[in-house]
Every structure is written in C-alpha cells, then in structure tokens.
C-alpha cells in the first residue's frame, strides 16, 4: 500500500489567510514553478496529508468523509483523482 507525503516546498498553510479565503489556496509545482489553484476540498486533503505524513489513501478518504459528514463512496474517486493530480505536480509524494 502506498503512503502519501506533502512536499513542503509546494504548499504552505496560513490559518488566518486560509480562513479568509474560505480555504481556497494555491500550490506550487517546485520543479516547473507552475502555480495551481486548489479548492476547499483539495485543501482539506492536503491538510490531512500534511498533518499525517505517510498516511494511506484509505485513511485520507475516511478522514475527509468524516470531516464532511459524507459517505466514503461519495469521495473515493474525487480524492484519488486529486491526489494523482498533485503527485503529477510534485506537491504530493508517494512512497
């Protein structure tokens, strides 16, 4: 099973600013310096992985679903897609 880690060079959490922005944020692909906008759903995923380095995909899905008070099946696909996109953009590492 793969473990996920956030690339600390690709995202910074700023509680006051993040809240003011309704948890919309931006991330950086440190390799090509591309800036990507992230919505509150993606923010939540990144925050969970950042706070729990080495977390498994199933745990991310579970925690996000719990936080959003939703069923796991509702989020499984979306979370997987988001994580894959962030891996491509070098914002998340998998080991």
């Amino acid at each position, binding site marked *: 099973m793969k473990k996920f880690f956030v690339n*600390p*060079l690709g995202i*910074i959490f700023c509680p006051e600013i993040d809240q003011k922005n309704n948890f919309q944020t931006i991330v*950086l692909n440190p390799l090509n310096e591309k800036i990507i906008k992230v919505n509150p759903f993606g923010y939540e995923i990144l925050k969970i992985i950042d706070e729990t380095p080495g977390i498994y995909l199933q745990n991310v899905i579970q925690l996000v679903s719990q936080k959003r008070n939703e069923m796991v099946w509702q989020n499984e696909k979306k979370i997987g897609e988001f994580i894959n996109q962030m891996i491509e953009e070098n914002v998340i590492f998998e080991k």
Partner: protein
Amino acid sequence: MTKTGHPFLEIPQKSFTDGSLPKIFPKKLVLPQRVFPSRFLVERENYSCGGYFVCYEKVVSNEELALACQARNWQFLVNLAADFLIIYCDYSTNELFVITDQAGKFPCYFSIRSDRLILSTDFGAVKNALDSATLNLDTAFDYLATGLALFPTDETFISEIRQLPPGCLLRIDSSLSFSVESMVDLDGFIARKESPYTTLKEFSDDFLILLGQIVKERLDRVGSLRFAADLSSGFDSSLISYLLKGVSKKSFICYCGFCQKTTVDTNPKIVAKFAQKHGLKVKFLNEENHFPFSKIYSLRIAAKEPPKLILEEREHERFNRVAKDGNIILFQGSGGDELYDSHLIEFWAPFPIQQNYFITVGRLKLGINKILTKDGLELLLNRERFARKKFYPLIISESAVGLNLAMFPLAWETRVWPVTPFIDWRVVQFARRIPLESSKKPEKQEIWKYHSDIFVSSQFKPKRGYEDLAKLYLIKKPEIVISILENSILGKKGLVKAQEIVGNVQKGNLKKYLEMDEIVYLLYLLKLEYFLQHNNIKVPV
C-alpha cells in the same frame, strides 16, 4: 538631529502621562529643513503635526493635512499619490500617530523600550540609541534570499527595532503600547477595475497620455527647482525623459550610467541616438569601477545597516554627481518593469504569504544552496516562519516599494529626491487593463512598437541586466570576501557555508558562485556579516 540629518524623535514615557507632552513633543521632534518634499509643522493647543509632504495628484495644504489627521482620516492620506512622513501628536488623548505613504518613499524605524520611544528614518540612529541589540534571524534570512525586496513586514534586522510598513499607521498610546495597521485600500482598488483594452495600440496610446499627465503633475510640484532625469537604453527612463522634454520649459540634464567592459544594462550608443532624436542633453557616467566593495564607503554603509541595493556604489556615485550638479530632483523610470504585471494583482492579493514563500522556494534553483548550509536552508524555508509573518497589503508592487525604501538613505543624505511617475496607484490601475493574448502578457517591445516616433529602432532589442558588474567584487576583491567570511558569525552557528566559500575563493574556484544568482546571495551574506561583526549584536540559535 542625527549626524546624517535625519528626522528623529525621542520621548520619555513619563511625558505621555505627566501632562508635559505639549511642551516636550515639539521640542524633541527634529525635522531637518528640506527643499523637497518640504517640511511642515502645524501647532495647535490640542495637537502638533509635522513631517514632510508632497502630493502629486492634488494640492493639499498644511492645514488640510492637519485636519485630516485630527479627523483620523488616515485612509484619505495613504491613498493619495503622494510622498510623506507625518507625525501627529494628540495632546487631548496623549497619543502619537505616525503614517507614511504607500510607495515606501519614507521608511520609519522605531523602538519602544520600557522608558522611552525612539523614532527615525535612520536605522543607524535608532540602533545607536539602544542599550542592547539582538539579531532578528527571520529578517536576516529573508535578506539573504531576497534583499528584503518581498513584502515589507514591521520587523527589521534587530528585534528591538520595528519599522512602519508603507501605507501603515503607527499608533502609540500613553502606556507606550503600540499598534500598526495598514490604511491601503487594496480591496477597493481591486474592485475598481475597468475592462481590459482590446488592442495593444489603444492601450499604449492611452498609457502615454496618462503617463504624460502624471509627469506633468509631478513637474508642477517640482516648480522652479532644478531637476534631472535618469536615462538608459531601455523603455522606462527614456519614456519619462521624452515626456519631461515635452512638458518642461526648462532645460535639464539626463544622466546615463553605463559600463563598456561588462555590457551592463544600458548601451550608451543607443542612448546617444535617442537623445539626439529628442534634443536631450546627456551626461554619461562610466560605472565600471563602481561594483560592490569597490569603494571604502561600502563597508561604512554595511556597518550601519546591510544595504538592500545590490549596486549601492553605482547609485551612490550617480546620486552624488546629480547633487553636485545642483539638482534637487531626479526623475526615474523605476517601477516600470513591475507595471506590466499589474493584471496579476487580483490573483496574488489573497495569497501574500504563499506568494512570498514560493518565491523563496524558487531561490533553491538559483543557487542559494551554495551559500546556506542544510540548517540554514531549513531555517530559510521553515513554513511556520512564513505563516507567522504579518502581512500589510500593497497596491504598488513589492519590488518597486522595496526599491524606494532601499533608495531612501541615499536620497535623503544627498538631498536629491527621486520622482518616480511609474510608481503611482493610478498608473497601476491603468496597467491592469493590458490586453492579454491567451493570458500571456505582451513584452514591452510589443507594447511600444506603435511608437517609433519616440523610440529608436535599436531599443527594441531586449537588454541585459547588471549581473556582470555585480560579479566584479568576487573577481577583483577576493580578499574582502575572505576577511569577512573568516570571521563569519552565521558560519560559526552552522547556518552558512562560510569556511567552504573561503576555501574556494582562496583556491580561485570562483565559477560555482558566478553561475546563477549566487553572487547576489553571497553579497548579501557579506554585508550582513560585516554588519554583525561591527556592531555588538546578539545572535540567537
């Protein structure tokens, strides 16, 4: 007054509570005479208000200024296109207020210790008044990576000294508690955007009209004072000189710094052609001997405060020459480059910390890892360090504001005031309307190609930067690099690769520091180290 003639204020805390403030404040407020921006002082029974002020977009009398302060109309003041430092003391509430313009034309440093307030535009004067000083590692590391050209905070190199960020209000109450609050209406500014132009020609035509009005307004404020202008082979300063020539009835000299050997950023032949085309008088200043550490005063300046300008010596020589020729004002094209990114203001505005963190991350690709150790890099890129930063919004670009702040000591001490028409909120607002093709901004060459009546054809080629001149200190003055880094304080703390750099310089292995931006980071390190080694500053860690 400070030795260098800067504004200065020192008030004991007891004056705020024992009723002596109306007597003490006017006596202790030192405002040296200045031709431009002129000094003002309004004294009334309930308050005193003084400082330096020039407004370009409208005439504001001293009485109106004082009334705006009395009414606490700080937003009105800050959102004017103006250069100012205002100190307002309210005797009825025993409060002191300090406010500066939003373009960074006046820095203001202050220190509040248990028994007194010290305030000045001169960092050295506040530093010298302290009993003890501690290095602020946050500021020190931001300086090493960026020269403090990113967003200004209220912190300085010394933890005991704060600065008032541009466009902010400092409020000090009778117990010497203070607050710093931005008065820049960034949200209102962003909301006022008009639709983008559809063609570059229309955009550049209207840009020219607006800039012409702004240059004229500034010239009106300058009045009969003697002025000069910077002139390079790029578009910005040449545009300003061209517009000045069109509206001025007086003759003026353009100063062109150049450097034959090192292909620095201007080409004197192009400048000569441009000058001939418009009948401009040019004084050419050969700058090839004005590289970092080329002059004795380089170290004296660094001992006072690590300078933010990379080519301090080059600016020093030019400003002194302009002053020696009797000029009071120097029109400049500063802020021109940044204008063409104004359309991005609404994208970046919600993410100031992220933007600055990502810029700092980008330094890794530019060679900062050759200067900092692993521990140093960890400190530089510590996300908590960034997340803690207090952000003060700006309309004018950070680098233009940073340049103004960096230029201030030179401008003040040579008595030559830089007038910068591109650094004006109205120009920034206009530039947001640039037409974008597939979200890509056009190059300056494309924008100005419709104005071959102004520019000469050879100006339409991209010009080089000043890196070659900056590199000379490492090649020609290796002994300075070695002598400073052999005693490196940050090296002893394991934060910078001082010994490794010394070893490489001694062996003549300079190439690795001449590849990307290492030469700049190394220069900042040398100046910071010199500052630390020549002041009794405690270094945490």
